[in-house]
């Protein structure tokens, strides 16, 4: 649990606004594979489906925590949709240089959980490697808004899943008895 740095009433009010905006388009977002499971302060839980697959498959669940918002950026936990235990997937991004980078890092120094290393997330702004890119610079730009975070999670972790890769392996469980002369 995060330490409280501002009056929860402030965060709650901002949380309500973010959730109200999102719920207005719940049905459209569902068509994109965003299943809004719950929104109880301070956490919004959303499960993402890979809708390009038939049948669609649940790829991951995220808990977005608005504690101390917007003094601090929201914090994101990436979870297995079934067990709700921490889950690490690749978040591939093609840079203008053509280089592909993975935005998911295995373990944050504070939480020891996988995190999305992207401006607008608390994990990014609290990481020592990004102490030159303060949340204050992004705070009023809509980076860190609920929609922004979900949109980028979908873009880098879910939308790039477009096909199954199946491999078959036969397992021998017995032998056919040949006739004995």
């Amino acid at each position, binding site marked *: 649990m995060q330490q409280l740095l501002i009056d929860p009433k402030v965060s709650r009010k901002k949380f309500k606004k973010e959730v109200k905006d999102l719920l207005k388009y719940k049905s459209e977002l569902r068509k994109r594979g965003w299943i809004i499971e719950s929104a109880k302060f301070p956490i919004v839980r959303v499960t993402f489906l890979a809708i390009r697959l038939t049948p669609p498959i649940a790829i991951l669940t995220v808990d977005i925590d608005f504690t101390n918002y917007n003094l601090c950026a929201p914090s994101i936990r990436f979870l297995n949709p079934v067990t709700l235990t921490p889950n690490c997937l690749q978040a591939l991004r093609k840079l203008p240089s053509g280089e592909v980078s993975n935005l998911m890092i295995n373990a944050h120094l504070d939480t020891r959980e996988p995190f999305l290393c*992207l401006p*607008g997330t608390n994990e990014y702004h609290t990481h020592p490697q990004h102490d030159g890119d303060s949340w204050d610079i992004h705070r009023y*730009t809509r980076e860190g808004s609920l929609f922004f975070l979900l949109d980028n999670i979908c873009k880098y972790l879910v939308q790039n899943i477009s096909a199954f890769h199946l491999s078959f392996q036969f397992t021998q469980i017995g032998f056919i008895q040949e006739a004995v002369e």
Partner: protein
Amino acid sequence: MTKKDDKKDDKKIEIEIIISGTGYGVMSFPDGINLKGLRDQVLEKTNNIGQSSENWEVRDSDGNLLDLSKHLQDYGDIKQLWFSLKAGIGG
């Protein structure tokens, strides 16, 4: 082309605008408008000018990224436009 034809070409399309997940109501555009021009016009009208317009993407209601070099009419019967802010460089 006659003036009458010009007016015929200026068919207006009403589209709901959603910017960063927030609804801004329905706006009317000529169907021949270039999407890049539409993006800039919408961002200015809605006072979303803190970021360069180049930092915004435009998607349809299914989340498909639209090609800004195309015109509104190229996408047929479009009801909603979703504006999303591109993320800064992380990693």
